[in-house]
């Protein structure tokens, strides 16, 4: 897998504070291909090349405004034929390339879709160009999960995965469910959906890495280290493709010596597989009103560590799930402990982001949970190797949006197919990718395909509804919402027990997710502060030590990728009303309220340590003012997860 994005990064990072040799740069790299491209694109679609439109559009708006919310809007102007030599390298025309399908995101869904497309094309002896872009420097570097993998979709996609060396080495052998009190771990029965016979305990990051290799082998063009930051539209409003980030801008959006314009991929079908709460997907929701008929999505934050433990304590194949302490009855949350084999332990806590107490600190909850005697015993004598966190979907069936729009579709967790009772989303994500691939392939190769008309993947949504994804999610659809009664977790467990064991979802009623997570916080004055114990440095750790275990890094001196819609809101609203919850829900210490030296004594300001960001998306979800906009930083940045 090419780690090409880290090109120059290392020397550049080390070099950052040293005087640099000045390099004469010519930014525009498009000139010779321009005429060919103009003809090719004009033949495909009526109207102008979007690149030209972008530069025309750029000339009439301020650079920083466009940079902050870079969504290309369809232009109603005709093509500009005149070639304009712009002095400003940030407005130079972008190199554009044509492909049949472009996929945003190299996770299970995106890679499965890519592999399936090429399998179909190769079987027909057909040429099909499939391009996949992924913001991580390496496939798998941003992937984090428990995980116990149900191989159902993998068996359909790559039946000979064992011969091909898939890292499914540890079968799940034993399932345990426990209820934690402060000192005890009480065994509980578990719903049948949580029995893991036939499943595997895996590092999802390693699994995705392997999937990436399979994708390259069937001929997918995989480009890690390139972040899709902009959706491109045709004149008729359909999705034309995506553009990657400009790189080499400084904090003030000014081009540095190493500035390179992003590039565009124009595709017949664009599949968005960004994972939970995708940054481009959220723009598609607004652009195409995809959420008009569904419930708001609800989320949890999963925080985990991977430990090398004392071999005597390792019981390979053991799967443990726990509820209870330290999470209180009114907060949704649960923990997992998976014995991965080879003396490795994957353990973590998932906290529902519908929590009400602004003083809740998910990271610190996780750290104190590890001190429970059951967990502490496992960890003693071991060493923490890895840490990370990611938001996950909890909304289930009711929160699935419309999955397609002219020119593209949503697949995987960015749409939201996670089965919360099984706590598994990988198999459904993969299946959704495969179904989208079938639908897209049929549309592209159909006799009825017309170049000037956008592809509308209506049958993709129907395929999903007819598949086992829908059956699974329908069966458990009422479980998570049943936790939203005054009975809290107790009520949820009781109802879910009955539903999963007896009723199996065969009820006429469907509970709804009525309130988005960011509206759930209570004001600080009505909330109880929580006194978290200090980390001991052996079992529990302080936040920055943990962040160093994510391997996260972002190239220095680039625009801050966490954008505030209103820069006064954090202090005037979040801090004043909710006592600054962003300082607590971020698992990487990005948000800090520090003293503002420039103002009168006692005033605070929000400091954004964006370099710490591990791309979990929690801030975009939970900010009570919805003021934080998570945008994608330069490709190649972010965590370097290992074994997660």
């Amino acid at each position: 897998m090419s780690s090409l994005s880290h090109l120059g990064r290392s020397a550049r990072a080390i070099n950052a504070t040293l005087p640099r040799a000045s390099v004469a740069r010519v930014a525009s790299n498009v000139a010779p291909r321009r005429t060919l491209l103009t003809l090719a694109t004009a033949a495909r679609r009526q109207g102008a090349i979007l690149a030209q439109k972008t530069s025309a559009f750029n000339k009439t708006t301020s650079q920083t405004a466009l940079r902050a919310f870079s969504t290309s809007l369809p232009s109603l102007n005709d093509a500009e034929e005149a070639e304009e030599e712009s002095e400003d390298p940030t407005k130079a025309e972008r190199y554009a390339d044509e492909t049949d399908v472009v996929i945003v995101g190299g996770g299970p869904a995106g890679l499965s879709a890519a592999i399936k497309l090429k399998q179909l094309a190769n079987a027909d002896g057909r040429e099909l160009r499939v391009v996949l872009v992924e913001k991580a420097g390496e496939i798998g570097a941003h992937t984090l999960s428990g995980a116990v993998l149900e191989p159902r979709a993998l068996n359909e996609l790559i039946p000979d995965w064992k011969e091909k060396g898939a890292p499914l080495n540890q079968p799940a052998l034993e399932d345990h469910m426990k209820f934690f009190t402060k000192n005890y771990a009480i065994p509980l029965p578990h719903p049948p959906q949580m029995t893991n016979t036939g499943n595997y305990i895996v590092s999802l990051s390693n699994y995705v890495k392997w999937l990436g290799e399979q994708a390259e082998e069937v001929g997918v063009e995989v480009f890690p280290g390139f972040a899709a930051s902009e959706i491109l539209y045709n004149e008729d409003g359909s999705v034309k493709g995506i553009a990657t980030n400009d790189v080499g801008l400084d904090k003030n959006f000014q081009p540095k010596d190493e500035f390179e314009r992003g590039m565009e991929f124009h595709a017949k079908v664009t599949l968005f597989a960004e994972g939970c709460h995708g940054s481009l997907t959220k723009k598609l929701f607004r652009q195409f009103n995809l959420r008009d008929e569904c419930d708001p999505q609800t989320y949890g934050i999963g925080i985990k560590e991977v430990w090398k433990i004392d071999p005597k304590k390792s019981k390979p194949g053991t799967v443990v799930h726990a509820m209870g302490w330290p999470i209180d009855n009114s907060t949704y949350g649960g923990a997992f402990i998976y014995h991965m084999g080879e003396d490795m332990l994957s353990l973590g806590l998932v906290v529902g982001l519908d929590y009400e107490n602004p003083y809740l600190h998910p990271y610190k909850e996780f750290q104190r949970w590890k001190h429970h005697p059951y967990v502490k015993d496992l960890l003693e004598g071991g060493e923490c190797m890895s840490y990370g966190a990611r938001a996950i979907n909890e909304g289930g069936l009711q929160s699935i949006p419309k999955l397609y729009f002219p020119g593209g579709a949503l697949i995987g967790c960015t749409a939201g197919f996670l089965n919360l009772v099984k706590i598994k989303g990988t198999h459904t994500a993969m299946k959704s990718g495969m179904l989208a691939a079938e639908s897209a392939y049929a549309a592209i190769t159909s006799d009825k395909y017309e170049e000037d008309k956008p592809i509308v993947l209506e049958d993709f949504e129907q395929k999903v509804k007819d598949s086992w994804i829908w059956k699974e999610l329908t069966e458990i659809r009422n479980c998570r919402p049943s936790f939203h009664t005054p009975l809290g977790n107790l009520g949820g467990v009781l109802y879910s027990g009955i539903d999963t064991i007896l009723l199996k979802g065969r009820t006429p009623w469907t509970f709804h997710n009525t309130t988005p997570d960011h509206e759930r916080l209570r004001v600080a004055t009505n909330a109880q502060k929580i006194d978290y114990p200090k980390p001991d440095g052996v079992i529990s750790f302080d936040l920055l030590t943990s962040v160093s275990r994510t391997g996260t890094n972002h190239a220095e001196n680039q625009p801050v990728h966490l954008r505030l819609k209103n820069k006064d809101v954090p202090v005037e609203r979040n801090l004043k009303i909710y006592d600054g919850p962003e300082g607590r829900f971020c698992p990487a210490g990005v948000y800090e309220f520090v003293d503002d030296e420039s103002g009168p004594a006692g005033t605070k300001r929000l400091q954004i340590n964006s370099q710490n960001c591990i791309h979990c998306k929690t801030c975009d979800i939970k900010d009570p003012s919805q003021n934080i906009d998570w945008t994608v930083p330069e490709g190649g940045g972010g965590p370097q997860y290992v074994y997660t």
Partner: protein
Amino acid sequence: MSNLRILVATKRVVDYAVKIRVNAAGSAVETANVKHSMNPFDEIGTEQAIQIKEALVKAKTGTAEVIVVSCGPAKSQETLRTALAMGADRAIHVESDEELQPLAVAKLLKAIVEKEKPDMVILGKQAIDDDSNQTGQMLAGLLNWPQATFASKVELGDKLMTVTREVDGGVETVKAPLPAILTTDLRLNVPRYASLPNIMKAKKKPLAKFTVADLGVDIKPRLQTLKIAEPPKRQGGKLVESVDDLVDKLKNEAKVL
């Protein structure tokens, strides 16, 4: 018109940002499933070669052919593709799964130099995994070529290079006739990003493969690593009450007096 042929040596190493650990056996640093990339000093070397080429083309005084070479396992090809994406013209992969120590690499590079006959060989001053700082110097010795190491500035004249070197005492300027060896130091340049279009173009650039046997080189290691251990954990600082207390601690606890 001067047409130069520049050979750039690159190595695939554990990425500089990775937190390295000693493996379970205690025999080496853990490299499985760990992110790798091009040695940062080699990126600078590749960048330098491409800048030389661009300068010649811009001044219309000639051109340069930039050849990148890497010795290592199959995955070294990723490193070569990176260099091709930056702007190198072609690549050579000397494939070997064995341990390649600096002397072995120098001998392999000598064999490549005898095939390709470059005017310059550019290497990184050291690799960040072993910090040997030997390959460039050994290659110069084997070829009997002049060498300018730790370069922070390079100027090319007619069959001559003027190099400013960073040395312990400051900065030293040397002149060396070509063909010569250059090893890069940090301040030489800032490597460019590989743009996606260039990465795609790089896939079509030629990549030749050789085995160690093809080149007839003895690569047997001459050094044996006896032990690898993590550095001792940092102890907390202690406050001392008085000068006597400090002297006592330095003498009896730290044992440095």
